[in-house]
């Protein structure tokens, strides 16, 4: 490519560049999940159908979602994953888990690795990040930034698509005892789902009331600093969905030690 005459490429590059009408990556993602496509995504689908650029982006996203190491890539992938496990453990400050992947720690880094990121640079990066935190934020306030809004202070009601959520939303001092929302007109029952941030389900429940208690086992999974999502869906007598809340996000605050503690 670099040896191609740039003037020959100009027209093609202009024709294949994204336009203002091109859809966002989130819209493409929703198109991947056809069951989640609503009215807004129908417009996105219409654009994508006629747009070479967006069709290619959609194909790439689908390929990414389905990607896993192929037969010729497994060994290299295991080698990389073993190192990522080590790197992420360093980044998070967690004890390094014993690697499940072959090849971890068996070979010596190449000279260029010493000059690139590896242990020294990694430690420096973490130290620099810590320094920035110390310089910019008073230590008592250090910790995850606040999620807004916070329901701890009052009886705020959060309007969403159809089901209005009461809480929990935002940063909390303690794991919540229940999930609450406002009764939706015509609703006979509610289906509640709690998820991790990648939408992996943590827990679900059915309720006849506009609230549901959280079992102790679920509350025990609410580790300080870990965000969780939840959503409630209202159903009619036939079990048909009539309304849903937006996905809500909350987490338990990381408790900062007081001086002398």
């Amino acid at each position: 490519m670099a040896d191609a005459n740039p003037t020959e490429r100009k027209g093609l590059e202009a024709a294949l560049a994204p336009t203002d009408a091109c859809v966002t990556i989130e819209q493409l993602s929703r198109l991947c999940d056809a069951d989640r496509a609503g009215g807004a995504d129908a417009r996105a689908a219409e654009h994508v159908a006629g747009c070479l650029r967006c069709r290619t982006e959609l194909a790439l996203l689908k390929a990414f979602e389905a990607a896993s190491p192929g037969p010729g890539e497994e060994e290299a992938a295991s080698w990389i994953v073993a190192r990522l496990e080590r790197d992420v453990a360093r980044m998070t400050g967690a004890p390094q888990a014993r690697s499940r992947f072959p090849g971890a720690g068996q070979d010596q880094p190449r000279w260029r690795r010493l000059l690139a990121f590896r242990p020294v640079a990694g430690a420096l990066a973490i130290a620099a990040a810590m320094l920035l935190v110390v310089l910019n934020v008073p230590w008592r306030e250090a910790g995850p930034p606040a999620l807004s809004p916070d329901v701890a202070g009052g009886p705020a009601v959060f309007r969403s698509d159809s089901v209005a959520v009461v809480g929990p939303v935002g940063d909390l001092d303690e794991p919540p005892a229940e999930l609450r929302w406002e009764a939706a007109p015509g609703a006979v029952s509610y289906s509640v789902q709690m998820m991790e941030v990648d939408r992996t389900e943590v827990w679900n429940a059915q309720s006849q009331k506009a609230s549901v208690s959280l079992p102790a086992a679920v509350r025990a999974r609410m580790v300080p600093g870990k965000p969780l999502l939840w959503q409630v869906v209202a159903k009619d007598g036939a079990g048909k969905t009539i309304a849903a809340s937006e996905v809500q996000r909350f987490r338990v605050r990381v408790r900062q030690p007081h001086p002398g503690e």
Partner: protein
Amino acid sequence: MWVQELFRRHYPKVVSWCLRFAGDREEAYDLAQTIFTKAFRHLESFRGQSKVSTWLYSITRSECMNFLKARSTRPPAAEDALEELPADGGTRPDEALERRVSAELVRALLDQALDETEKKVFTLHYGDEVPLDAITRLLGLSNRSGAKAYIVSAKRKLRRAFRRWKASERGLDA
């Protein structure tokens, strides 16, 4: 610990992607490491409005494109030489198209003349400057010449489509 668990679920996707972009274990590791470092740094800004995999994809895509841009300063690979492609006599279609027609017409001709794989190869190669070997791996093309064969056939088809368009323009002018 939950961050480790979260990332662990997505290692296969990101790592395969990096391997396909870089085509080399060491460089793929550098790429994957940059992606997860960036993801960790920006985890707080992730609001759960899209899937984690979508969020990671956007970081991965951006880092992979940056990687390709950085690598393009190196000597070009042989398969990138457009000059190797058959000229088929006369004016090259992309040259003529650049001079004579608008981007809209180029898009219309591409859309009409090429099959879906050719369109994707063309878009990635000319739109994003992804090298042909990386496109071959990304799209899982199993033919012997990989993406290069699709570029050659696409150019041939585009040339024919352009001739037809020129002929129809002449007909309209007459």
